[in-house]
């Protein structure tokens, strides 16, 4: 061997990429950027055409980012681009409410001072976050972004996995990551089954402009028919995530904007003054879907492909970014040890790290939703007292809050804002 690095160069040449990521939403690009910045060669394959979403104007869709998620965005260089468009959450108030009554007397009130580390989270519109990801992918040296192209087949082998794209191209890599949502084709083709159920609920999502300042405070009212979240955006504007039974939601969706507001108004009282719609209204049927495994030979699942959760408290993206951070760390560590990053024992480390946490959270949120989506007077009294107790015991409240902020458990480095 004349060339000392010949063996390794040969190995690099054999695969088109180290990692192929199916899905160009938010988790896929986040993982791609984290891996690319650590020196891995990544191809992101997105079935959607990127421009359609990037050019969108204000549509009211927004995320409640936990602090850990914001740190990850900072670590991969996306945060500075979106920071000016983010609304800091100074406090989250959760209350038990019933239509016409406004919040019940006992309510949880978390504020930034209790966390000891600035805001409790940030609200950020989808359009700003997605645009920032798109620009970052264009600029990333080790990342290839293929839009408007689906993966139609995948074949795992001894040394890697080969995927076939809808345009007939074939690409090979060490690992294929499914970041392709709750109906993940990657999971299905890998033979990973799913467990899940519908909630009989639909989320009504819209943005409102209001008269009085929100002060950066997010509100979550637990109503008998489902939770109502009021999440502050920059200016006198809020994002509304309102869950209703499917039947109610269908009726409400059919209402005119004026009638819609008339139904919405009594549900959160008058603390924001006059309200009016700031954009289109969306509705999403709610269901829980968990993949029976997070890995298969040469395959790993992240985000909704692994666990599609109830969007209560905006945990879907936060949970997905925890997958991103854990998988990125596992793959980068394996790379630096010289391991085969798609080997079963390497992928097992990711599954072992994430699966318990996300399943527990998914089922926990399911439980919270079931407990609160109920108008039984006994249950209602019980949860009022329970919330009063949580409120009066600072340690319990802090724990509840740190979990919601994604700060508990063994944290991957990216979620601490540290580079890999």
């Amino acid at each position, binding site marked *: *061997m004349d060339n*000392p*690095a*010949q*063996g*390794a*160069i*040969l*190995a690099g*040449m*054999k*695969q088109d990429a180290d990692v192929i990521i199916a899905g160009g939403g938010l988790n896929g690009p986040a993982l791609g950027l984290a891996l690319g910045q*650590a*020196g891995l060669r990544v191809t992101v394959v997105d079935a959607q055409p990127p421009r359609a979403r990037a050019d969108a104007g204000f549509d009211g869709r927004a995320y409640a980012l936990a602090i850990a998620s914001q740190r990850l965005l900072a670590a991969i260089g996306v945060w500075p681009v979106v920071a000016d468009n983010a609304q800091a959450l100074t406090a989250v108030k959760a209350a038990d409410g019933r239509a016409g009554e406004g919040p019940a007397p006992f309510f949880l009130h978390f504020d930034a001072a209790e966390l000891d580390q600035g805001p409790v989270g940030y609200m950020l519109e989808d359009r700003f976050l997605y645009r920032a990801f798109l620009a970052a992918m264009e600029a990333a040296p080790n990342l290839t972004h293929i839009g408007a192209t689906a993966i139609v087949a995948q074949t795992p082998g*001894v*040394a890697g996995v080969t995927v076939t794209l809808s345009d007939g191209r074939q690409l090979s890599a060490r690992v294929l990551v499914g970041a392709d949502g709750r109906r993940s084709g990657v999971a299905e083709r890998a033979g990973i089954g799913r467990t899940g159920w519908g909630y009989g609920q639909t989320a009504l999502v819209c943005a409102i402009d209001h008269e009085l300042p929100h002060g950066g405070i997010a509100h979550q009212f637990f109503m008998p028919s489902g939770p109502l979240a009021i999440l502050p955006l920059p200016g006198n504007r809020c994002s509304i995530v309102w869950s209703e039974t499917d039947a109610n939601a269908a009726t409400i969706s059919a209402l005119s904007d004026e009638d819609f507001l008339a139904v919405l108004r009594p549900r959160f009282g008058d603390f924001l003054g006059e309200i009016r719609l700031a954009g289109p209204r969306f509705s999403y049927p709610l269901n829980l879907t968990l993949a029976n495994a997070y890995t298969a030979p040469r395959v790993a699942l992240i985000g909704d492909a692994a666990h599609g959760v109830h969007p209560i408290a905006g945990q879907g993206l936060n949970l997905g970014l925890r997958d991103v951070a854990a998988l990125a760390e596992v793959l980068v*560590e394996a790379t*630096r*040890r*010289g*391991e*085969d990053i798609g*080997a*079963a*024992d390497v992928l*097992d480390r990711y599954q072992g790290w994430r699966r318990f946490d996300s399943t527990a959270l998914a089922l926990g949120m399911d439980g919270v939703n079931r407990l609160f989506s109920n108008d039984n007077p006994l249950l209602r009294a019980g949860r009022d007292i329970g919330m009063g107790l949580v409120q009066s015991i600072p340690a319990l409240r802090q724990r509840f809050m740190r979990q919601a902020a994604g700060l508990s458990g063994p944290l991957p480095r990216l979620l601490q804002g540290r580079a890999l």
Partner: protein
Amino acid sequence: MQPATNTVDPAEVAKFEAMAAEWWDPNGKFKPLHMLNPCRLDYITTQIAAEFGRDLKAAQPFAGLRLLDIGCGGGLLSEPMARLGAQVVGADAAARNIPVAQLHAEQMGLEIDYRHTPAEALAEAGEQFDIVLNMEVIEHVADPQGFLTTCQTLLKPGGLMICSTLNRNPKSFMMAIVGAEWVMRWLPKGTHEWHKFITPDELYTLIRTAGLDPVDRKGMVFNPAAWRWSLSDRDLSVNYVTTSVKR
């Protein structure tokens, strides 16, 4: 070096494929080595990077370094070293391991020079290396002092030897013989002979006598709660690993 598939009976290839799959199955016969491997690799990569001033975050950090893996088996250490850019010679005294390791490296697209040879023959042929890996080998050799002297001969000046083995004390008897061989059946009975285990101080003496400077030693500790091995600065009571330099 001819590829394995050109020099062996085609009927043998299927057997080698099965053996390679066995060597590389993380839950198979060599599970204990697979479990130990990340911990060994963390130590090896850190020591090599420190000694030769390489950045593990860079691509191909070990490019230009010639490395000998003694007792390479199926290539569990040789392959990662090749992936990191090192020019690797894998040597094993067991002839059956060589085609198996060659086949797997080929499947992975890695070029590794596997040889059925004792270390002594390489030394006699005047082969020289920047790094000699001598991992979980010395407790199996008849003459540890002679073996380490051979390793010293194989090193270029400034070269690095990384040597791991098992400590000799009542705890190591319980863990490595009773625990790993008798109870957990991780290793076949008789894999290890406890009286051949070497204490860290004995090993340092052997290394110095061989003409090398010991520069670092760490324990490798199995944590049953996390079900994972990790490095320890203090606990060298069972498995441990050392680094020495040829001045």
